[in-house]
């Protein structure tokens, strides 16, 4: 027995056989060729003099930005408050609309797999595929410039995000808990509130706060197209070349985002 094992021939092992190995090498070759070709194309249409000049330009712009125009901050409280409102109201609207859509999109809760589910999935894709800046651009022409257009833009953009993550959470629940509630004679609505809602509640809260956090960042740029908030001021300052005001606004935006990240991290931690 022992001697048999010792006498057995050495068996070689490789991660890939020869054919697989060759195809991997070939893949790398093609990839490198494409990269080199594209680099050359881009290089032809680039004015390199400008690029070499870039560090000097950046240093120049940086020099114009300091010191930030601190006194200007009194005019920023209002726009930053608008920005926070756009993000918060937009997130709330999206949550209200996303919950029923997620319910219809989740395979295990949808009332109709053939009819409602595709519609819900389409709404999710449509909302996700259009950037909030584009939503805002369209809404400014529809409802006019201002905070309201920003809120709706953020809301429409967020529906897809919230609904998608929420319906995935619904699909991942433990069915046996639902089955147990159902077997007591509970109605469909009771089965949902007792069997499903408690299971998706942490995910739901996490998703909402996460989206709010993203929306604060997104709503800072909505003003660029006239949809209210600090972006409006930023746009004005840049076009008028008030670089010290621009630097102050960038600092304010950074501070706001840090604050929102801190809040959302706290909330998520508290829930889970």
């Amino acid at each position: 027995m022992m001697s048999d094992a010792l006498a057995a021939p050495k068996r070689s092992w490789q991660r890939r056989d020869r054919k697989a190995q060759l195809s991997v090498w070939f893949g790398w070759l093609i990839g490198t060729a494409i990269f080199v070709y594209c680099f050359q194309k881009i290089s032809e249409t680039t004015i390199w003099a400008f690029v070499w000049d870039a560090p000097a330009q950046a240093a120049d712009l940086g020099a114009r930005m300091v010191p930030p125009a601190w006194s200007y901050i009194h005019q920023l409280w209002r726009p930053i408050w608008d920005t926070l409102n756009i993000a918060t109201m937009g997130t709330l609207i999206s949550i209200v609309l996303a919950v029923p859509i997620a319910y219809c999109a989740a395979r295990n809760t949808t009332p109709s797999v053939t009819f409602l589910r595709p519609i819900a999935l389409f709404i999710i894709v449509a909302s996700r595929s259009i950037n909030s800046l584009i939503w805002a651009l369209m809404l400014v022409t529809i409802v006019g410039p201002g905070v309201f257009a920003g809120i709706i833009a953020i809301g429409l953009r967020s529906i897809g995000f919230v609904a998608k993550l929420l319906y995935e959470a619904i699909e991942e629940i433990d069915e046996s808990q639902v089955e147990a509630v159902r077997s007591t004679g509970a109605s469909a609505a009771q089965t949902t509130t007792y069997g499903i809602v408690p299971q998706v509640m942490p995910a739901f809260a996490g998703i909402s706060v996460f989206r709010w956090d993203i929306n604060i960042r997104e709503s800072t740029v909505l003003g660029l197209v006239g949809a209210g908030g600090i972006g409006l001021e930023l746009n004005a300052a840049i076009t008028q070349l008030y670089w010290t005001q621009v630097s102050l606004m960038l600092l304010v935006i950074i501070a706001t985002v840090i604050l929102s990240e801190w809040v959302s991290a706290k909330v998520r931690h508290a829930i889970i």
Partner: protein
Amino acid sequence: MLRIRGLTKRYRTGDLALKGIDLDVPDGQVMALIGPSGAGKSTVIRCINRLVEPTAGTIELNGTEIVALNSGNLRRMRRRMGMIFQEYALVERLSVMENVLSGRLGYVGFWQSFMRKFPQSDIDEAFRLLQRVGLDHMADKRADELSGGQRQRVGICRALIQNPELLLVDEPTASLDPKTSRQIMRLIRELCAERKLSAIINIHDVMLAQMFAERIVGLKLGEIVYDGPPDKLTPAVLTQIYGEEDWASTIRKADDDDAEEAVAVPEIAPAAPSIERDRLAGLT
């Protein structure tokens, strides 16, 4: 009295899980359903409360035919059958009390249950049951903070608060250690005796089945191959149910019985002293 006639289940995959089962369970009888994995034990239980829809056959509980019920009547029927699950199937993020009270969902309206405004009588009964299983001090704990044995006891309370006529028990001990398994089986057995409840218990552990059931039904490939008292479960019968194996050590001998009980009783007493007291008080 549960009467099953010609119960057949064919899954959508084409597998014939049950091949026309006939089974009567008289009131107050604790019956164990044994058999290898895939024999159809779970399917039998789930067909009775129609978590799984039977393909053919009739099921009658105390005169009501179950298979043909529409959804409203099925809900009312499910109130009359308590189910206990293998992995407890408690709603993990709800409190112990909410889990127990969820057994009353069939009796209260949606908003009442949504606002957690259950009738005082239900709350009294929930506390009484929790006390009976020794968990009344845990009422406000979240279900996922409990140990396996404690969770299963909450599961038992959830089934009993329905005030059922029949208990459907699906592998109650599969996730529990041997000692807790015995305690849980003993508890189910005692509660059934107290309330004159009949029970169908799916169980893998033949020895536990013999210890705690008064009747054993052996299922193999969707057919009943044994139906009789625990002490008639010979190696030949087990071979018929499960296939060839050395069964000598599995089968419980008559004198092991007493030794087992003698060891088990003092074991449980210090762990949950309130159980003894409640039993004397004649609760539930």
